[in-house]
C-alpha cells in the first residue's frame, strides 16, 4: 500500500490538499484538506447587516454574484423585506451572466487539459496564428533536447498518455482553438453581467432589498447582443464538445464507476420565476429516493460537524448557531467543516441539480430537452461519475440560456407595464433583532447563508458553501465527505501518476486551489503532476 499526498492541487479556486492510500492499483481511502482560512464570517460580527452582501461576495472571485445574491436573500429575510419583480429579474440576469462565464471556463481552462496531449500540435499544419505559436514552442523544445535525461528520473515520471488521453491531432487542435475562444467568451459573459451589475467580478448592484438599477433600453440591447454571442458559443461549441467527448473518446470513462461516490444529491434550487417556482428546482435525494422537494423542509435538517476541522467545539449543530472560532492546535486535518443533510454527506453541483430535475417529473424543468438528453445518457450506460458531472454542467447551461431570453422579455414587459420598482425601501433599515437565511445555488452547488441580527448589527453569520459540502472531512459518525468517497476505487495503476485523482476532484469544480505532491509511505517525496 502506498500513501500519496497531493498538495496543492492546481486549476481549482482556493487551496486544496489530497491524501490517498493506494492498494492494488486503486484508491482504498482518501483524506481531503482545505489549507487556507480567512475568517470572513467572524469579521462580519458587529457590522451593519447590509454590509454582509458586499463582503460575502468577496468569499469567491469565481462564483462572484452567488454569495452577494444569497446573502441579500438572508438579510431580506431578517428585514422582512419583499423583493419587487423587477429586482428578481435583474438579479437572475446578472447571476445568469456570471454562470455563463463560469461553466465554459471550468471545462476548457480548468479541466479539459487533463484529457489532451498537447505535444501532438508539433504536427499542426494549419494557419491559426496562436496554434502556430504553440507549435513553434513545441518544435523548439524538440530541437533542443536535454544533454542528460536523468533529471526526469523519479521526480518527474515520463507521462505516457493513458487510456483517457486524447492524442488525435484534429481533436486536440479543435479543443485548443476552443480553449482560446472560450477565454474571450468568458470575458464577454462577465461584460454582459456587468452591464446590469456595475462591474464583474464582484458586482455592486445586488444589495439587500433589491437592486440599484433598472436597465434602460440601450443597456438591454447591449446585453442582448452579448447574450446572442455567448449563447451561440455554448450551443454550438461548448455543449457539443463536452457531449462529443463524453460519447466518443471518453465513453469508456463515462460508463466506468470512476468517481461515482455516494449518489446522495442536494440542490437548493435557484433563479426564481414569476410563476413562483425555481428554474433549477430544489431537492434532496438519498439512496435514490427524493426525500424533500422544498427549501423549508431541507433547511432544518442541515448540520455542520467539525470533528476533523480546525474549529473549537466538536458537536454537530445547525448553521444558524454555528461558531467560527478556530482552534489551530486541534488534531484535525482541514479548515473545511462537514455539512450533513439529515446526517448524510451530500454531493452538490450540476450533477445534483440534474438528478433533482430528472427525479422531479412534474417540475417544468423536467421536460426540457437538456434534462431528457441527460436521462438518455444515463439510459445509454453513463454512470454518475466524472464525465456525467461535465455533461450535467454543460446541459444545464442550455436551460439557463433559454431562460435568459425569457427574463429579458420579462424585463421589457415590466417596463411597459410600469413595474420598474427595484427596491423595498420600507425594509432598508435593519430591525433591532431578527434572523434569516438565504439558500440558492452557486454554479458549483448549493449555497446557504444564515444571519442573526442583534441590536441592529450582525450578531452571527454563517455560510455553508458548495465546496464545504463536497470537500468535507470525515464526520463523528465515520462518514467521509463526497470527494473522499468518490475517490474510493479510483484507478491509480501507476503510483507515480495519479492522474485520475485530479480528474475526479476537478469534475466537481472545487472552489479551493490545488496542486499535487506525492509522499511515499517511507516519507520520501515523489512528485506527480495532476
Amino acid at each position, binding site marked *: 500500500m502506498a500513501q500519496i499526498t497531493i498538495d496543492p492541487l492546481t486549476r481549482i479556486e482556493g487551496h486544496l490538499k489530497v491524501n490517498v492510500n493506494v492498494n492494488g492499483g486503486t484508491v482504498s481511502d482518501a483524506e481531503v484538506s482545505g489549507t487556507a482560512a480567512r475568517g470572513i464570517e467572524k469579521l462580519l460580527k458587529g457590522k451593519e447587516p447590509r454590509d454582509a452582501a458586499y463582503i460575502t461576495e*468577496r468569499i469567491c472571485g469565481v462564483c462572484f454574484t452567488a454569495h452577494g445574491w444569497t446573502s441579500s436573500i438572508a438579510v431580506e429575510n431578517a428585514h422582512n423585506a419583499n423583493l419587487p419583480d423587477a429586482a428578481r429579474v435583474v438579479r437572475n440576469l446578472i447571476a445568469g451572466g456570471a454562470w455563463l462565464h463560469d461553466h465554459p471556463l471550468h471545462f476548457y481552462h480548468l479541466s479539459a487539459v487533463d484529457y489532451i496531449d498537447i505535444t501532438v500540435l508539433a504536427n499542426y499544419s494549419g494557419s491559426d496564428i496562436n496554434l502556430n505559436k504553440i507549435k513553434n514552442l513545441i518544435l523548439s*523544445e524538440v530541437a533542443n533536447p536535454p544533454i542528460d535525461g536523468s533529471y526526469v528520473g523519479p521526480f518527474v515520471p515520463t507521462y505516457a498518455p493513458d487510456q483517457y488521453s486524447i492524442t488525435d491531432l484534429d481533436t486536440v487542435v479543435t479543443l485548443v482553438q476552443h480553449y482560446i475562444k472560450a477565454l474571450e467568451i468568458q470575458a464577454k459573459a462577465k461584460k454582459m453581467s456587468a452591464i446590469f451589475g456595475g462591474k464583474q467580478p464582484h458586482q455592486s448592484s445586488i444589495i439587500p432589498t433589491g437592486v440599484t438599477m433598472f436597465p434602460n433600453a440601450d443597456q438591454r440591447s447591449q446585453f442582448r447582443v452579448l447574450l446572442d454571442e455567448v449563447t451561440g458559443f455554448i450551443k454550438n461549441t461548448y455543449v457539443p464538445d463536452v457531449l462529443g467527448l463524453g460519447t466518443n473518446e471518453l465513453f469508456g470513462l463515462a460508463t466506468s464507476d470512476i468517481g461515482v461516490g455516494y449518489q446522495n444529491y442536494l440542490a437548493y434550487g435557484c433563479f426564481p420565476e414569476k410563476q413562483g417556482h425555481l428554474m433549477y428546482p430544489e431537492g434532496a435525494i438519498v439512496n435514490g429516493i427524493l426525500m424533500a422537494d422544498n427549501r423549508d423542509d431541507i433547511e432544518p435538517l442541515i448540520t455542520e460537524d467539525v470533528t476533523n476541522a480546525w474549529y473549537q467545539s466538536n458537536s454537530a449543530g445547525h448553521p444558524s448557531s454555528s461558531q467560527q472560532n478556530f482552534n489551530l492546535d486541534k488534531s484535525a486535518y482541514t479548515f473545511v467543516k462537514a455539512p450533513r443533510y439529515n446526517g448524510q454527506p451530500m454531493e452538490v453541483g450540476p450533477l445534483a441539480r440534474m438528478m433533482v430535475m430528472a427525479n422531479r417529473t412534474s417540475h417544468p424543468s423536467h421536460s426540457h430537452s437538456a434534462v431528457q438528453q441527460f436521462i438518455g445518457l444515463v439510459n445509454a450506460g453513463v454512470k454518475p461519475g466524472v464525465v456525467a458531472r461535465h455533461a450535467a454542467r454543460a446541459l444545464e447551461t442550455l436551460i439557463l440560456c433559454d431562460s435568459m431570453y425569457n427574463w429579458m422579455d420579462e424585463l421589457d414587459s415590466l417596463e411597459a407595464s410600469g413595474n420598474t420598482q427595484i427596491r423595498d425601501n420600507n425594509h432598508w433599515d435593519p430591525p433591532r433583532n431578527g434572523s434569516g437565511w438565504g439558500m440558492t445555488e452557486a454554479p458549483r452547488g448549493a449555497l446557504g447563508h444564515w444571519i442573526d441580527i442583534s441590536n441592529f448589527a450582525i450578531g452571527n453569520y454563517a455560510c455553508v458553501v458548495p465546496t464545504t459540502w463536497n470537500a468535507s472531512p470525515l464526520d463523528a459518525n465515520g462518514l467521509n465527505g463526497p470527494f473522499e468517497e468518490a475517490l474510493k476505487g479510483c484507478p491509480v495503476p501507476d503510483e507515480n501518476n495519479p492522474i485520475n485523482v485530479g480528474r475526479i476532484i476537478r469534475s466537481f469544480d472545487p472552489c479551493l486551489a490545488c496542486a499535487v505532491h506525492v509522499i511515499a509511505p517511507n516519507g520520501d517525496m515523489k*512528485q506527480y503532476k495532476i
Partner: protein
Amino acid sequence: MKAKLINRRHFIKMSSSAAAALGLSQFLFTKEVFAAGPNAKKPAVIWLEAQDCTGCTESVLSSLTPAPIDVLLDTINLQYHETVMSGTGYVAESALQAAIQEGGYILVIEGAIPAADKRFMKVAGKPVEDTFIEASRNASAIIAIGACASYGGICRGGESDGQGAEYFLDKHGVSKTLINLPGCPLHPQWFYETVIDFLNGKNINLDSNKRPTSIYGQKVHRNCFRRGTNLCLKSQGCKGMWTKSNCPTLKWNDGVNWCIGSGAPCAGCTEPAFYDQISPLYTKKFISSYYPK
C-alpha cells in the same frame, strides 16, 4: 551532478512556464521536449496567490483589449500561477524554486498574508508568508494587486489578520520596488498598464500609499457624473469623496458600467482604509484614509 541539477531545474522551469503560458497540461511536456523557445526571452512573471478569492485573476482575465491570450503568448513568461497553470504539485513547486533562483522577475502577489498565525495559510505544507518573502528577495519589482495584497483589504480585521505585501517586506527587512494596485478587484487595465510601463522602463510616480498617481491620482467624486446633482449618492454612504481612482472615466468591463454608474455607492475599495475602517458601506460616514500597520 551539478550539471544534472541545473538541467533538471531548467527543464522543469521551461516546460512548466510553457505550460503555464498555454494554460495547458504540465505533464504532457514530459516526452523529453524542452524549451529554449520564445518564452526564454520574455520577461518572467511569478504570480503568488495568498489569502485571495481569485477575483483579481478573474478581473485580469476579463480584459478584451488586450486579450489575455496575447499577453500570455507574446508579452510575458508566466512562470507560476496556481489557478492558470497546468503543472501541479512538485513540478509547479520546482518551477517556482527555479525561477526564484534565477531572479529578475516581476513578482505579482494576490491576496493578503495572515499575520496572526502562519498556519492560517499553507501551500505545499509551507506558510505563504515564507514563500512570499523568499520570492521577494530576488524579484526585480513586486506588484501587489487588489485591496488584500496591498493593505490587507477584506482579510484585515478577520481572525487571521490578513495584511498586505508591504507589512511583510518591512517585517523581514526586504527593500524592493513595490507598486500597490488596490481595488476589489483591481481593474484589468491597471494591471496591464502598470506591467507594460514597468517593462518599458517608464517612470511610474507613486503616491504615499505606493499607488501609481496616473491611476489613483484623483478623487472619484471629482470626476463623477452625479457630482453636484440630486443623483449624488453621498447620503447613501458613497465613499467617492475620499477615494482615489480613475473609475469614473475608465469604467469597468470594457467600459460598460461601474459601481456608481449602476446606482451603487462607491465602497472605497482602492483606499488603505478598506474595508474595516470604511464600514458601514451604505451609511454616510466620514472616512479619513487611514491604515495603521
